């Protein structure tokens, strides 16, 4: 899983996906006919075929923070990029694009209550505004820092949401040889801030069918919110989330493909959240869209946890559906 490690350790906060993009392009060059990067920064890789035009999408971006103000003492105030749980980020480390590490602190009065973002700051050890500004400018984004671990059949890393999805698409591309359908593998930007990259990419590709590959919550930890999805039970075939009711034909095709190739799968009904599928299926006159989800614990934290077997199941299902849809 070297590639997954590389992908997760790269930083690509929404709007600043460059490093991830470069990594992906060099990885997939050999496995497609044509690569373009659109105005939103999404990577559109075409793997030609004579059959149906199918778009696969996984987003490259991750949640993070963005510097908004630097005070006289060199402390950096910030805003969130994407959905952040403020109570979880206190004392987390963030990494700016130049590699500078900062620690998230909070004003004293916030210690005893639910912290709010405007009472928090980033400390990069600078002693003055001038010193801080040598490393960080207002508008710079930073990702949450975290290591990469594989053990007991799981992988623990930051940004598995959604580098795991990128990894799944890349590995599926590698598996697919002489594909009959006309395939577009799209690595989208700005999903975490409103499914934006997928919207324009889908408009450009104008596919007949689409499959988004992303992560989903699980209900398998102690006293977790009720949800049927669990780690190690296979690829999750999405029925719905807040952004999409998945197309029934695509859904049934996924189930049939999984059964045929004996790929473990489970059904996912999510009453919160959204994925690129939400943007894609509403493109132009509508796109029949489904989604494959990787079950993920501790989403949007530096210690996201997924099952390696599930990741492999998602790869198999993605490859299988590309040929059978």
């Amino acid at each position, binding site marked *: 899983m070297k590639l997954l490690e590389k992908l997760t350790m790269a930083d690509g906060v929404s709007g600043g996906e460059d490093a991830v993009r470069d990594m992906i392009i060099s990885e997939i060059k050999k496995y497609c006919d044509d690569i373009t990067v659109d105005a939103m920064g999404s990577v559109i890789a075409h793997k030609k075929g004579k059959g149906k035009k199918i778009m696969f999408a996984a987003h490259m971006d991750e949640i993070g923070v963005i510097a908004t103000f630097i005070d006289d003492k060199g402390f950096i105030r910030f805003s969130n990029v994407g959905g952040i749980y403020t109570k979880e980020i206190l004392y987390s480390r963030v990494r700016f694009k130049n590699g500078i590490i900062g620690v998230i602190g909070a004003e004293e009065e916030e210690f005893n209550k639910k912290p709010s973002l405007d009472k928090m700051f980033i400390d990069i050890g600078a002693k003055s505004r001038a010193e801080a500004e040598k490393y960080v400018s207002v508008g710079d984004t930073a990702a949450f820092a975290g290591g990469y671990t594989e053990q007991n059949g799981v992988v623990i890393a930051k940004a598995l949401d959604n580098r795991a999805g990128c990894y799944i698409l890349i590995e599926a591309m590698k598996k697919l040889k002489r594909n009959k359908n006309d395939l577009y593998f799209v690595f989208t930007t700005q999903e975490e801030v409103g499914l934006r990259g997928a919207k324009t990419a889908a408009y450009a590709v104008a596919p007949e069918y689409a499959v988004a590959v992303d992560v989903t919550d699980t209900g398998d930890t102690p006293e977790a919110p009720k949800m049927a999805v669990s780690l190690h039970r296979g690829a999750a075939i999405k029925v719905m989330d807040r952004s999409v*009711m998945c197309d029934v034909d695509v859904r049934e095709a996924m189930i049939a493909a999984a059964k045929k190739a004996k790929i473990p799968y489970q059904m996912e009904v999510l009453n919160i959240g959204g994925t690129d599928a939400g943007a894609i299926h509403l493109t132009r006159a509508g796109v029949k869209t489904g989604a494959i989800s990787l079950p993920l614990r501790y989403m949007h934290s530096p210690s996201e946890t997924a099952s390696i077997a599930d990741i492999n199941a998602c790869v198999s299902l993605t490859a299988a559906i590309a040929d059978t849809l």
Partner: protein
Amino acid sequence: MRSLIKELSDMRAISGSEYRINKEIAQMFMPYADEVRIDALGSVIAVRECGIENAPNVMIEAHCDEIGLIVTDITDEGFLTFGPVGGIDARILPASVVTVHGKRDIEGVIGIKPDYLLEEGKSVKMKDMAIDVGMDAAEVRKIVSIGDGVTLPQSVGDLGKKQFSGKTLDDRASLAAVIEMMRRLKDKQLNVNVYACAHTQEEVGCRGAKVSAFGIMPDMAIAIDVTHGVTPDNSYNAFPVGQGITISLGPNIHPKLSERLIKTADDNHIKYALEVDGGETGTDAWEIQIAGAGIPTALLSIPLKYMHTSVETLAVSDVKALVKLLVNFIEGQEGDTQWLKL
């Protein structure tokens, strides 16, 4: 009219599951249309061509999906837990007999705990309810899967001589009006092409209308939905049933189009009230208006009591008034769109 409303209200399809009924709806349009198609999101689009070159295209639409529930898990005891699809009121659910759309349709009872095990005065949250289908888990799993849709029970139908109560009159009563309009226009010479649409997924964000409007790109569109009827517990922003439809005004509505609808209603002695929204109307009109380069859009509504419950109730005369207005509006079209210029 009554039987058409009943037939449509009896159909069962939550948002995203319109494939269960869209072919049937397409059949209902067939005798009155030159072409009927189903688009990528499952919406039914019935086209009536007038045969005149460059004639304006008019979209008349209602949505065909319904609010309901979706199975989220099957417990070891065989109970089905569920979540909402669309804005459903959890307080209407206890003791309801619902239909679970598994491999075959089966009935289920939504049960809550007895009152002595509940907190006094508190309603029960959806996550604390389950559907009881009278089977053990192994039996249930043979028929039901996570993600299967669940629909509400049907209401009584005729309520007195004038009113009608059913599940899903939002928005199948409007759809009945669209179908009836197409029937009445059948042999008439028209100056516009009519796109009569039954759109999907309105209850989860007006999704079917959005993509259908982009695909058709009509010169004008009239969305038809329901509005709140006056009841003993609400008269604010509500309209009495049996006293005509509403014609909407506000930023979501093209002023010339609403003006023409009002004039058509006045000229033909059709009863209406004006309904005003300062912004979002919460209907397909909101999404249709911004499709492509923008579409002149209007909104007509039928007053409906108990919206989003299993006992939605309306007056049949209001649906008839709506049909009359639509037919007169289409017949009154002279084949140009100059009058829409702002």
